[in-house]
Protein backbone atom coordinates (compact mmCIF):
# COMPACT_ATOMS: atom_id res chain seq x y z
CA UNK A 1 0.00 0.00 0.00
CA UNK A 2 2.74 2.44 0.95
CA UNK A 3 5.61 1.69 -1.42
CA UNK A 4 8.03 3.97 0.39
CA UNK A 5 7.44 2.34 3.74
CA UNK A 6 8.36 -1.37 4.05
CA UNK A 7 6.78 -3.21 7.01
CA UNK A 8 10.10 -3.76 8.81
CA UNK A 9 10.93 -0.07 8.72
CA UNK A 10 7.71 1.17 10.25
CA UNK A 11 9.17 1.35 13.76
CA UNK A 12 11.86 3.83 12.80
CA UNK A 13 9.73 6.65 11.35
CA UNK A 14 7.34 6.38 14.27
CA UNK A 15 10.13 6.87 16.79
CA UNK A 16 11.37 9.84 14.81
CA UNK A 17 7.94 11.41 14.73
CA UNK A 18 7.45 10.97 18.46
CA UNK A 19 10.79 12.58 19.05
CA UNK A 20 9.80 15.54 16.91
CA UNK A 21 6.39 15.93 18.44
CA UNK A 22 7.83 16.56 21.89
CA UNK A 23 8.74 20.06 20.94
CA UNK A 24 5.48 20.64 19.11
CA UNK A 25 2.55 19.11 21.03
CA UNK A 26 -0.74 18.63 19.21
CA UNK A 27 -3.43 21.08 20.13
CA UNK A 28 -6.39 19.01 21.38
CA UNK A 29 -8.69 22.02 21.61
CA UNK A 30 -8.75 23.08 18.00
CA UNK A 31 -11.42 20.48 17.19
CA UNK A 32 -9.69 19.38 14.00
CA UNK A 33 -9.08 15.74 13.25
CA UNK A 34 -5.78 15.35 11.39
CA UNK A 35 -5.44 12.67 8.80
CA UNK A 36 -2.29 10.53 8.87
CA UNK A 37 0.63 11.43 6.63
CA UNK A 38 0.69 8.73 3.94
CA UNK A 39 4.36 7.88 4.51
CA UNK A 40 3.90 7.40 8.25
CA UNK A 41 0.79 5.24 8.29
CA UNK A 42 2.14 2.10 9.96
CA UNK A 43 -0.21 0.01 12.05
CA UNK A 44 0.76 1.87 15.24
CA UNK A 45 -0.14 5.18 13.59
CA UNK A 46 -3.46 3.85 12.37
CA UNK A 47 -4.29 2.68 15.89
CA UNK A 48 -3.32 6.04 17.29
CA UNK A 49 -5.42 7.95 14.76
CA UNK A 50 -8.33 5.63 15.42
CA UNK A 51 -7.98 6.49 19.11
CA UNK A 52 -7.93 10.18 18.34
CA UNK A 53 -11.02 9.87 16.16
CA UNK A 54 -12.80 7.96 18.90
CA UNK A 55 -11.84 10.61 21.44
CA UNK A 56 -13.09 13.35 19.13
CA UNK A 57 -16.36 11.49 18.63
CA UNK A 58 -16.78 11.01 22.38
CA UNK A 59 -16.20 14.71 22.90
CA UNK A 60 -18.82 15.63 20.29
CA UNK A 61 -21.35 13.19 21.76
CA UNK A 62 -20.79 14.63 25.24
CA UNK A 63 -21.30 18.13 23.82
CA UNK A 64 -24.56 17.07 22.16
CA UNK A 65 -25.80 15.56 25.44
CA UNK A 66 -24.87 18.74 27.26
CA UNK A 67 -26.80 20.91 24.80
CA UNK A 68 -29.80 18.57 24.91
CA UNK A 69 -29.68 18.72 28.71
CA UNK A 70 -29.55 22.52 28.71
CA UNK A 71 -32.42 22.89 26.25
CA UNK A 72 -34.58 20.58 28.35
CA UNK A 73 -33.68 22.38 31.56
CA UNK A 74 -34.37 25.78 30.03
CA UNK A 75 -37.76 24.64 28.75
CA UNK A 76 -38.49 23.42 32.27
CA UNK A 77 -37.45 26.78 33.63
CA UNK A 78 -39.72 28.69 31.22
CA UNK A 79 -42.60 26.40 32.12
CA UNK A 80 -41.97 26.89 35.85
CA UNK A 81 -41.82 30.67 35.47
CA UNK A 82 -45.24 30.66 33.80
CA UNK A 83 -46.66 28.30 36.44
CA UNK A 84 -45.36 30.46 39.27
CA UNK A 85 -46.79 33.63 37.76
CA UNK A 86 -50.14 31.94 37.10
CA UNK A 87 -50.31 31.08 40.79
CA UNK A 88 -50.13 34.75 41.72
CA UNK A 89 -53.05 35.82 39.53
CA UNK A 90 -56.32 35.32 41.31
CA UNK A 91 -58.68 36.50 38.57
CA UNK A 92 -59.38 33.48 36.30
CA UNK A 93 -59.95 35.71 33.27
CA UNK A 94 -56.59 37.37 33.72
CA UNK A 95 -54.94 34.00 34.26
CA UNK A 96 -56.40 32.36 31.13
CA UNK A 97 -53.99 33.77 28.51
CA UNK A 98 -51.01 32.86 30.69
CA UNK A 99 -52.33 29.30 31.10
CA UNK A 100 -52.67 29.13 27.31
CA UNK A 101 -49.04 30.17 26.93
CA UNK A 102 -48.05 27.52 29.47
CA UNK A 103 -49.87 24.89 27.42
CA UNK A 104 -47.99 25.99 24.30
CA UNK A 105 -44.63 25.89 26.05
CA UNK A 106 -45.52 22.43 27.37
CA UNK A 107 -46.38 21.26 23.85
CA UNK A 108 -42.92 22.30 22.65
CA UNK A 109 -41.39 20.72 25.77
CA UNK A 110 -43.18 17.44 25.03
CA UNK A 111 -41.58 17.44 21.60
CA UNK A 112 -38.16 17.86 23.14
CA UNK A 113 -38.64 15.10 25.64
CA UNK A 114 -39.42 12.80 22.71
CA UNK A 115 -36.92 13.98 20.11
CA UNK A 116 -33.72 12.52 21.52
CA UNK A 117 -35.40 9.20 22.29
CA UNK A 118 -35.86 8.35 18.62
CA UNK A 119 -33.15 6.43 16.80
CA UNK A 120 -33.23 8.74 13.78
CA UNK A 121 -32.66 12.32 14.94
CA UNK A 122 -34.01 13.67 11.64
CA UNK A 123 -37.48 12.13 12.01
CA UNK A 124 -40.04 11.80 14.75
CA UNK A 125 -43.21 9.76 15.17
CA UNK A 126 -46.21 12.09 15.34
CA UNK A 127 -48.41 9.34 16.83
CA UNK A 128 -46.17 8.73 19.85
CA UNK A 129 -45.88 12.41 20.46
CA UNK A 130 -49.65 12.92 20.07
CA UNK A 131 -50.27 10.22 22.69
CA UNK A 132 -48.09 12.09 25.23
CA UNK A 133 -49.47 15.52 24.45
CA UNK A 134 -53.18 14.67 24.23
CA UNK A 135 -53.05 12.49 27.36
CA UNK A 136 -51.46 15.34 29.29
CA UNK A 137 -53.99 17.87 27.93
CA UNK A 138 -57.02 15.70 28.62
CA UNK A 139 -55.79 15.11 32.17
CA UNK A 140 -55.17 18.77 32.87
CA UNK A 141 -58.11 20.31 30.93
CA UNK A 142 -60.59 17.49 30.53
CA UNK A 143 -63.54 16.85 32.74
CA UNK A 144 -66.14 14.25 33.56
CA UNK A 145 -68.49 13.61 30.69
CA UNK A 146 -66.09 14.59 27.92
CA UNK A 147 -64.21 11.52 26.67
CA UNK A 148 -60.96 11.89 24.79
CA UNK A 149 -60.23 9.14 22.28
CA UNK A 150 -57.04 8.46 20.40
CA UNK A 151 -56.83 6.80 17.00
CA UNK A 152 -53.12 6.83 16.23
CA UNK A 153 -51.06 5.29 13.47
CA UNK A 154 -47.31 5.80 13.27
CA UNK A 155 -46.31 8.61 10.89
CA UNK A 156 -42.71 9.76 10.65
CA UNK A 157 -42.40 13.50 10.10
CA UNK A 158 -39.25 15.60 9.69
CA UNK A 159 -37.92 16.63 13.12
CA UNK A 160 -37.66 20.26 11.98
CA UNK A 161 -41.48 20.31 11.77
CA UNK A 162 -41.90 18.86 15.25
CA UNK A 163 -42.52 22.07 17.19
CA UNK A 164 -44.95 23.43 14.57
CA UNK A 165 -46.94 20.18 14.48
CA UNK A 166 -46.97 20.08 18.28
CA UNK A 167 -48.38 23.59 18.48
CA UNK A 168 -51.00 22.90 15.79
CA UNK A 169 -52.19 19.77 17.60
CA UNK A 170 -52.15 21.61 20.92
CA UNK A 171 -54.37 24.43 19.63
CA UNK A 172 -56.86 22.07 18.01
CA UNK A 173 -57.24 19.82 21.07
CA UNK A 174 -57.29 22.68 23.59
CA UNK A 175 -59.89 24.45 21.50
CA UNK A 176 -62.16 21.40 21.30
CA UNK A 177 -61.88 20.77 25.05
CA UNK A 178 -62.27 24.38 26.16
CA UNK A 179 -64.94 25.60 23.79
CA UNK A 180 -66.76 22.56 22.41
CA UNK A 181 -68.64 21.61 25.56
CA UNK A 182 -69.92 24.63 27.51
CA UNK A 183 -72.36 24.45 30.43
CA UNK A 184 -71.57 20.86 31.41
CA UNK A 185 -72.40 19.47 27.98
CA UNK A 186 -71.20 15.85 27.57
CA UNK A 187 -69.50 14.42 24.51
CA UNK A 188 -66.26 13.20 23.04
CA UNK A 189 -63.14 14.48 21.32
CA UNK A 190 -61.39 12.10 18.95
CA UNK A 191 -57.82 12.76 17.85
CA UNK A 192 -56.66 10.86 14.78
CA UNK A 193 -53.14 10.71 13.37
CA UNK A 194 -52.75 8.70 10.19
CA UNK A 195 -50.64 8.50 7.06
CA UNK A 196 -52.29 9.15 3.70
CA UNK A 197 -49.73 8.40 1.01
CA UNK A 198 -46.89 10.80 1.70
CA UNK A 199 -49.14 13.07 3.71
CA UNK A 200 -49.69 13.23 7.45
CA UNK A 201 -53.31 13.73 8.46
CA UNK A 202 -54.15 15.13 11.87
CA UNK A 203 -57.86 15.19 12.61
CA UNK A 204 -59.55 16.55 15.71
CA UNK A 205 -63.25 15.74 15.82
CA UNK A 206 -65.63 16.79 18.56
CA UNK A 207 -69.38 16.37 18.94
CA UNK A 208 -69.76 19.58 20.93
CA UNK A 209 -71.64 22.77 20.11
CA UNK A 210 -69.78 23.43 16.84
CA UNK A 211 -69.93 26.84 15.23
CA UNK A 212 -66.86 28.45 13.74
CA UNK A 213 -67.17 31.80 15.51
CA UNK A 214 -66.41 30.18 18.86
CA UNK A 215 -62.82 29.65 17.75
CA UNK A 216 -60.55 31.97 19.74
CA UNK A 217 -58.73 34.23 17.33
CA UNK A 218 -55.14 33.76 18.44
CA UNK A 219 -55.32 29.95 18.53
CA UNK A 220 -56.73 29.88 15.00
CA UNK A 221 -54.07 32.31 13.82
CA UNK A 222 -51.36 30.04 15.21
CA UNK A 223 -52.82 27.04 13.41
CA UNK A 224 -53.02 28.97 10.13
CA UNK A 225 -49.49 30.37 10.32
CA UNK A 226 -47.86 27.11 11.31
CA UNK A 227 -49.81 25.07 8.75
CA UNK A 228 -48.46 27.46 6.14
CA UNK A 229 -44.95 27.04 7.54
CA UNK A 230 -45.02 23.24 7.14
CA UNK A 231 -46.79 23.59 3.75
CA UNK A 232 -49.87 21.96 5.16
CA UNK A 233 -53.54 22.63 4.49
CA UNK A 234 -56.28 22.92 7.03
CA UNK A 235 -59.97 22.25 6.63
CA UNK A 236 -62.82 22.89 9.06
CA UNK A 237 -66.05 20.94 8.64
CA UNK A 238 -69.38 21.05 10.40
CA UNK A 239 -69.56 17.56 11.94
CA UNK A 240 -73.26 17.91 12.87
CA UNK A 241 -73.00 18.02 15.80
CA UNK A 242 -69.65 19.54 16.56
CA UNK A 243 -66.66 20.27 14.44
CA UNK A 244 -64.05 18.37 12.50
CA UNK A 245 -60.69 19.99 11.76
CA UNK A 246 -58.26 18.21 9.46
CA UNK A 247 -54.69 19.38 8.82
CA UNK A 248 -52.77 17.64 6.03
CA UNK A 249 -49.00 18.01 5.90
CA UNK A 250 -46.56 16.54 3.35
CA UNK A 251 -43.97 14.43 5.18
CA UNK A 252 -41.99 12.66 2.43
CA UNK A 253 -38.35 11.81 3.27
CA UNK A 254 -37.16 14.48 0.83
CA UNK A 255 -38.97 17.22 2.76
Amino acid at each position, binding site marked *: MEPGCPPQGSQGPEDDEEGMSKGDPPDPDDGLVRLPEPAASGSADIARYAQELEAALRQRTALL*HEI*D*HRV*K*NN*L*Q*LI*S*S*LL*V*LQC*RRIENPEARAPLRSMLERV*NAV*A*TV*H*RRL*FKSTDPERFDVAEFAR*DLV*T*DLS*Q*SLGREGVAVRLDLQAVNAPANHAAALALILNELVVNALKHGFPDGRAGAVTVTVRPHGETLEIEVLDNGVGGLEAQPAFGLTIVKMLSQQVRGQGEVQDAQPGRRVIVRVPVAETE
Partner: protein
Amino acid sequence: MILDQPLNVLIVEDEMLLAVELSFLVQEAGLRDVGHAMSSEEAVRLARALTPDLALVDVHLNDGPTGVEAARLIAEDCGGVVLFMTANVMRLPDDFAGACGVIGKPYSENAVKRALAYLECCLRNDHAPGPPPLGLILSPAFRLRWGGGVELAG
Protein backbone atom coordinates in the same frame (compact mmCIF):
# COMPACT_ATOMS: atom_id res chain seq x y z
CA MET B 1 -44.06 6.55 57.60
CA ILE B 2 -46.93 7.25 59.96
CA LEU B 3 -50.15 6.08 58.41
CA ASP B 4 -52.48 8.98 59.17
CA GLN B 5 -49.80 11.66 58.67
CA PRO B 6 -48.87 13.23 55.34
CA LEU B 7 -45.74 11.80 53.72
CA ASN B 8 -42.58 13.84 54.22
CA VAL B 9 -40.87 14.97 51.04
CA LEU B 10 -37.33 16.31 50.58
CA ILE B 11 -36.68 18.37 47.43
CA VAL B 12 -33.14 18.15 46.00
CA GLU B 13 -32.94 20.67 43.14
CA ASP B 14 -30.42 23.42 42.48
CA GLU B 15 -32.76 25.51 40.29
CA MET B 16 -34.59 27.65 42.83
CA LEU B 17 -37.65 28.28 40.64
CA LEU B 18 -38.13 24.57 39.99
CA ALA B 19 -37.75 23.81 43.71
CA VAL B 20 -40.41 26.40 44.56
CA GLU B 21 -42.81 25.01 41.96
CA LEU B 22 -42.20 21.47 43.25
CA SER B 23 -42.87 22.65 46.77
CA PHE B 24 -46.31 23.94 45.70
CA LEU B 25 -47.08 20.68 43.92
CA VAL B 26 -45.99 18.59 46.91
CA GLN B 27 -48.25 20.56 49.24
CA GLU B 28 -51.17 20.49 46.82
CA ALA B 29 -50.82 16.72 46.65
CA GLY B 30 -51.38 16.62 50.41
CA LEU B 31 -47.74 15.81 51.18
CA ARG B 32 -45.43 17.71 53.51
CA ASP B 33 -42.43 19.60 52.13
CA VAL B 34 -39.80 19.11 54.85
CA GLY B 35 -36.75 20.65 53.22
CA HIS B 36 -34.75 21.75 50.16
CA ALA B 37 -31.19 20.87 49.26
CA MET B 38 -29.15 22.31 46.40
CA SER B 39 -25.98 20.19 46.71
CA SER B 40 -25.36 16.48 47.24
CA GLU B 41 -23.75 17.06 50.63
CA GLU B 42 -26.75 19.07 51.81
CA ALA B 43 -29.11 16.46 50.36
CA VAL B 44 -27.54 13.58 52.26
CA ARG B 45 -27.25 15.62 55.47
CA LEU B 46 -30.92 16.69 55.32
CA ALA B 47 -32.05 13.18 54.40
CA ARG B 48 -30.22 11.75 57.44
CA ALA B 49 -31.66 14.42 59.74
CA LEU B 50 -35.23 14.46 58.40
CA THR B 51 -35.66 10.83 57.22
CA PRO B 52 -38.13 11.82 54.47
CA ASP B 53 -40.49 9.22 53.02
CA LEU B 54 -39.79 10.51 49.52
CA ALA B 55 -36.86 12.49 48.07
CA LEU B 56 -37.21 14.22 44.69
CA VAL B 57 -33.65 14.35 43.34
CA ASP B 58 -32.21 16.13 40.31
CA VAL B 59 -29.02 14.59 38.85
CA HIS B 60 -27.25 17.91 38.25
CA LEU B 61 -26.80 19.79 41.52
CA ASN B 62 -24.75 22.85 42.28
CA ASP B 63 -21.70 20.67 43.01
CA GLY B 64 -21.91 18.84 39.68
CA PRO B 65 -23.60 15.66 38.40
CA THR B 66 -23.70 14.33 41.97
CA GLY B 67 -27.40 13.52 42.29
CA VAL B 68 -26.94 9.83 41.44
CA GLU B 69 -24.52 9.19 44.30
CA ALA B 70 -26.61 11.30 46.68
CA ALA B 71 -29.66 9.25 45.70
CA ARG B 72 -27.79 6.01 46.39
CA LEU B 73 -26.81 7.20 49.87
CA ILE B 74 -30.33 8.41 50.64
CA ALA B 75 -31.89 5.15 49.46
CA GLU B 76 -29.39 2.98 51.36
CA ASP B 77 -28.87 4.96 54.57
CA CYS B 78 -32.08 6.83 55.25
CA GLY B 79 -34.77 4.35 54.25
CA GLY B 80 -36.39 6.96 52.02
CA VAL B 81 -37.66 6.30 48.52
CA VAL B 82 -35.93 8.43 45.86
CA LEU B 83 -37.51 9.70 42.65
CA PHE B 84 -35.19 11.24 40.07
CA MET B 85 -36.34 14.35 38.24
CA THR B 86 -33.83 14.98 35.49
CA ALA B 87 -33.28 15.95 31.86
CA ASN B 88 -30.69 13.15 31.71
CA VAL B 89 -32.95 10.09 31.87
CA MET B 90 -30.73 8.11 29.48
CA ARG B 91 -27.67 8.50 31.69
CA LEU B 92 -29.07 7.01 34.87
CA PRO B 93 -27.43 3.72 35.91
CA ASP B 94 -29.33 0.51 35.12
CA ASP B 95 -30.18 -0.01 38.79
CA PHE B 96 -31.41 3.62 39.12
CA ALA B 97 -28.99 3.94 42.10
CA GLY B 98 -31.70 2.44 44.27
CA ALA B 99 -34.30 5.05 43.24
CA CYS B 100 -37.91 4.03 42.54
CA GLY B 101 -38.02 5.77 39.18
CA VAL B 102 -37.65 8.94 37.17
CA ILE B 103 -39.67 11.80 35.75
CA GLY B 104 -37.96 13.27 32.68
CA LYS B 105 -37.56 17.01 32.32
CA PRO B 106 -39.22 19.00 30.93
CA TYR B 107 -42.21 17.71 32.89
CA SER B 108 -45.69 19.22 33.06
CA GLU B 109 -47.42 20.25 36.27
CA ASN B 110 -50.07 17.64 35.57
CA ALA B 111 -47.48 14.85 35.18
CA VAL B 112 -45.86 15.67 38.54
CA LYS B 113 -49.24 15.86 40.31
CA ARG B 114 -50.25 12.45 38.97
CA ALA B 115 -46.86 10.93 39.78
CA LEU B 116 -46.98 12.19 43.39
CA ALA B 117 -50.49 10.81 43.92
CA TYR B 118 -49.44 7.49 42.40
CA LEU B 119 -46.26 7.25 44.51
CA GLU B 120 -48.14 8.10 47.68
CA CYS B 121 -50.43 5.18 46.96
CA CYS B 122 -47.44 2.89 46.24
CA LEU B 123 -45.64 3.97 49.42
CA ARG B 124 -48.64 3.55 51.69
CA ASN B 125 -49.69 0.15 50.34
CA ASP B 126 -46.28 -1.10 49.17
CA HIS B 127 -48.15 -1.98 45.99
CA ALA B 128 -48.92 -0.07 42.80
CA PRO B 129 -52.57 0.84 42.15
CA GLY B 130 -52.00 0.12 38.43
CA PRO B 131 -49.66 1.17 35.65
CA PRO B 132 -47.69 4.36 36.37
CA PRO B 133 -49.06 7.63 34.95
CA LEU B 134 -47.61 9.14 31.78
CA GLY B 135 -44.15 10.57 32.33
CA LEU B 136 -43.24 8.39 35.32
CA ILE B 137 -40.85 5.51 34.63
CA LEU B 138 -40.38 3.01 37.45
CA SER B 139 -37.03 1.31 38.07
CA PRO B 140 -36.89 -2.46 37.44
CA ALA B 141 -36.53 -3.19 41.18
CA PHE B 142 -39.55 -1.10 42.16
CA ARG B 143 -41.62 -2.36 39.26
CA LEU B 144 -41.07 -5.79 40.74
CA ARG B 145 -41.67 -4.64 44.30
CA TRP B 146 -44.81 -2.63 43.63
CA GLY B 147 -46.13 -4.06 40.43
CA GLY B 148 -46.33 -7.74 41.37
CA GLY B 149 -47.56 -9.57 38.31
CA VAL B 150 -49.19 -6.49 36.79
CA GLU B 151 -47.94 -5.62 33.33
CA LEU B 152 -46.87 -2.02 33.73
CA ALA B 153 -46.88 0.24 30.72
CA GLY B 154 -43.65 2.13 30.05
